Every structure is written in C-alpha cells, then in structure tokens.
C-alpha cells in the first residue's frame, strides 16, 4: 500500500517537474504590499493569458516584506504602497542591489455617508476620532443628532491598510466598528443606512452614497494625482536595476492604457486619462 503510494507520488513529482521545465521559458516573482497586490494579480492574469509561456507568481506579505525580498534578491519585483526608506535603499546598495522605483497607480480612499447625511466635510482628525470610538454622534461634527455607525473593512484588506496609513496612523479602530468583507458590501450598507460612515477606494463610489471631502478637498482622480487630496498616495513596484526581459515587458504593459484600465477596474486611480 505504502509502496504504491510512494510510486504514485514519484510519478506526480516527475510530471510536475516536467511541466515547469517545458512550459516556463521565464518566470517572474512578485512579492509585497497587499494594497498593490490586486492590481498586479489582475494584470498578471491578463498578461499571462496573452503570453502563456510566461510563469508569474504573486504573493503578499506587506510592503516591508516586498522591499526586504528585493534586497535579498528573493523576488524579481517588489510591490509597495510606500516609497523605499533611506535605510532600506542604503542596505540595498551595500548588498549590490539597485532598487529602481516605478509608480504604477494612485490610491485614493474616500469617506462615504448616506446621501441624506448633512455632513459634507470632515478633517482627518475627526475621521480618526470617529473610528477610534471617541466621536459617537453626528451632531459633534455638525450633523443631525444621530448615533454614528462606523463601518470598516476587514483588518487584513489593502483598503484597511490604506485607511490605517492615512487616518488611523496606528491607533486602533474601535471593536464596536462593523467590519465588512468587501467594498461592495460597504457601499450597499452605507447606501441603506443614514447613521453610517465608511470608506472605499475611489473606484467604488456610486450614486447611492455621498462622498465626503477631507480637510476641505473633494477626492477626485485629479486631486488625487495632484496630491491635493490628503488621502491619496502613489503605489510603487521596485526592481533590481532597470528591468529586463519579461519583467520589463510586464511593466510596460502595466503602464499602458490596457494596464491602467485594470488599475481602474480594481478600484484605484489610473495614472493616465483613459478616455
């Protein structure tokens, strides 16, 4: 019985090895930020459909992990939602790695409320106090006398990570906040609840919810690109030296009109006008 099992395992392994040898002419490994990951994941799928001979694998771990991996040369492309730090880039140089930065998209997070909510603008500090559970009534920020229901994304999502970065700055979101599993569920919930506040990537705005200005600036693709809107940032990938081969072709694809369409589709701000 065991012998047979071993034999089957052997055959399976041989087949697996053969398939990787014969089909993968070149492989590209991505690692890093879970914020950037959805863009790369979609783009990789589209790219691999067009180029079936290319093997690409994408994994998360966070921006720090990604940059660490590019320094250790364990990944070809690092995804990051922040620019490389000075220490990191020095460490890279000492190991003979030249981390080259590529901006691939913009990320803009928009706070949303029910359309009947009178509040139109909140400061970052007010948003943070609401999500920490310190401001609990809309009248404290100029609205009606209604309890605030803070809706958040799950703490492992990239959108949550962005919100944490821009607004919470490592303060804890109150456990009383509702946690919903997708941005679609968030907009549905807010569209039906006049007590609610939530946040979504710019791609998820629709007519059932009202977008709030932050520090007096309305969040649009233009204000995000000009960085006038405070909850916006660039999303990066890093390569070791100027990219070559499939990595270079993939990045060109990602920056092309087709690639940037994918950026818009997964809820981020494309860097070029798609019209």
């Amino acid at each position, binding site marked *: 019985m065991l012998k047979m099992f071993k034999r089957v395992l052997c055959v399976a392994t041989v087949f697996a090895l053969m398939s990787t040898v014969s089909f993968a002419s070149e492989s590209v490994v991505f690692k890093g930020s879970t914020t950037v990951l959805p863009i790369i994941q979609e783009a990789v799928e589209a790219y691999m459909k067009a180029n079936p001979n290319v093997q690409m694998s994408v994994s998360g771990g966070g921006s720090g992990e990604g940059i660490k991996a590019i320094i250790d040369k364990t990944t070809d492309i690092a995804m990051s939602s922040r620019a490389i730090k000075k220490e990191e880039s020095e460490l890279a140089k000492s190991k003979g790695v030249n981390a080259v930065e590529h901006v691939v998209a913009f990320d803009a997070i928009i706070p949303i409320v029910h359309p009947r909510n009178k509040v139109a603008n909140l400061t970052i500090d007010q948003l943070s106090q609401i999500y920490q559970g310190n401001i609990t009534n809309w009248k404290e920020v100029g609205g009606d006398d209604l309890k605030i229901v803070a809706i958040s994304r799950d703490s*492992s999502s990239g959108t949550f990570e962005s919100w944490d970065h821009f607004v919470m700055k490592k303060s804890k979101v109150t456990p009383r906040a509702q946690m919903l*599993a997708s941005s679609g569920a968030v907009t549905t919930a807010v569209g039906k609840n006049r007590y609610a506040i939530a946040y979504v990537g710019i791609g998820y705005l629709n007519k059932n919810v009202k977008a709030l200005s932050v520090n007096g600036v309305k969040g649009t693709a233009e204000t995000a690109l000009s960085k006038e809107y405070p909850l916006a940032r660039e999303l990066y990938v890093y390569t070791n030296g100027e990219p070559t081969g499939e990595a270079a072709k993939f990045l060109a694809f990602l920056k092309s009109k087709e690639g940037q369409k994918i950026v818009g589709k997964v809820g981020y701000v494309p860097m070029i006008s798609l019209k």
Partner: protein
Amino acid sequence: MNRKTKEIFIKYIFFVFALVAIIVLAMIVFSLFREGLPIFRQVSVKDFLFGMEWYPTYDPPDFGIFPLIIGSFIVTIMATLIAVPLGVLAAIYISEIAPRSIKEVLKSVIELLAGLPSVVLGFFGMVVIAPILQNVFDLPTGLNIVNASMILALMAIPTISSISEDALYAVPQEFKEASYALGATKFETIAKVILPAALSGVTTAVMLGMARAIGETMVVLMVAGGAAAIPESIFDSVRPMPASIAAEMGETPYRSLHYHALFATGMVLFFLTLTFNLIADYVSNKFKQTGSATL
C-alpha cells in the same frame, strides 16, 4: 470469477468507499491542527479563548477570540429559539394533523427552503431585512444579531423539521390507537403520547439544527455586521467565528501568526460542532424509545 470471489471483491470495494470519508476527515482534522496549534507557542490558550481584543494585524497583535465566541453563541442560541418552535410545530402539523394533499406541498416547500443557497439568504438579509429592521425599530444598523438569527433560523428550520418529522412518523401506530381508545383527544395524544415518544428524535433534530447554525458562514459574514465586541443589546453587531475566518483568511500572509490564529479559531469551531453532534448522538441512543413499556 466465481460467485464467491465476486462477493468478496464487491465487499472490499464498498469498504474502500466507506473508508474514503474517514480518510478525508482525518486529513482535514490533521491539517487543521497542524496549522492551528503553532499559535499557542506565542499566545496562551487562556489568552486566546478568553482574550477580549481581536486586533490580528496590529503591532503588537492581539489574538483574543472571546468576543467572536460570544458572537457565535448568541446568534446560534437566538436562531434556535426561533427555529425550534417553528420547526417542531411544523413537523407535528405535517406528520399528525395535515391532510394528505397539504402535507405533500408543505414537505416539499420546506425541503426547498433547505436547498436555498446561503449566499442568497444572506443577500436577502442584507438588502431586504436590514433596512426593514432599521426603519421599524429605528436602529443605527440593520446588520445585527436579530437579523443574523432570523436568517440562521430560516436555515435551521428544514433540518429541525424534517428530522423531527421522521421521529414523529416513527412513533408506532398502536400508541396513538391506545391513546384514542382511552378517550384522549387529538391534542392530548400529540402532547402526551406522540411528542414524548419522539422526544429523543426531536432533540437530535434540534442539536443538528444548532450545529448547522453555528457553522454557517456566508450568512453571518453578510448580515451580522462584523463588530468584534461583546454585544450590549440584541440589536448590536457581532462577529461570529466563521465570519472572521472567511473574511480574513484570503488576505493574511501564509503561515503568519494571524494565519495560525484563524486555523485555531477553526479548531474551536470544529470542537463546538463536534460537541453538538456527540450530544445529538448520545441523546438519540440513550433515550431511544424501544417498545411501549418505557413510555
């Protein structure tokens, strides 16, 4: 091949089929424990089970699932309170009172209810029930314990009703005849003879219904609201264990502490459903109605 070897051959084929389920279960349990246990190297069992804070992605992280356990229990208990009267009474009506034509229709409709995908029920709860609850009771949110319990009850009713009905149907005809012969009314016969005789079956049904409710994922993910805090009222949001696992597993790094913590939550859930099933099994064996002498 002669008849005898054929018999033996067939016997072993069936044995293998029966074995597949056991092997698969063993493998699942094994990987559940292998991925779940490492969390306890970092967090004590007590802090994990009774910790009040669930902040798995912060630095330093908190892995206390007590609010999640409470969330699971409260929606399950409330769902049971709604589903048991409805399910058992429906079973009594179908098995004892309804005329044949109505009986057939009711039975198939209840079975149809069991066939509804949970995501459809969850969507219904989110888009239809939540706004109604919110408007009627003037609540801050419709995604709360009551909403989740109602939807879970809807899912537990078919289980409770059909297993109860089998139990009621299995009560021997002579019990009823004896009861009627003594001059008992139909209500007295049902309440004092049929229901007690079928009690072990009905209890099994309730336990299996509860196991169904506590393990249900999609519904609680969509309508329970997901707040990882101990609720203060039945209109608060909660975050039952399956919702937490489903929402977070997809985006957590492989074999990180958070990943192990989610598997450990799965272990807790596994033990809970196992307990419900064992109780159901125990009750149905221990109080099995054999003959009429024990009634």
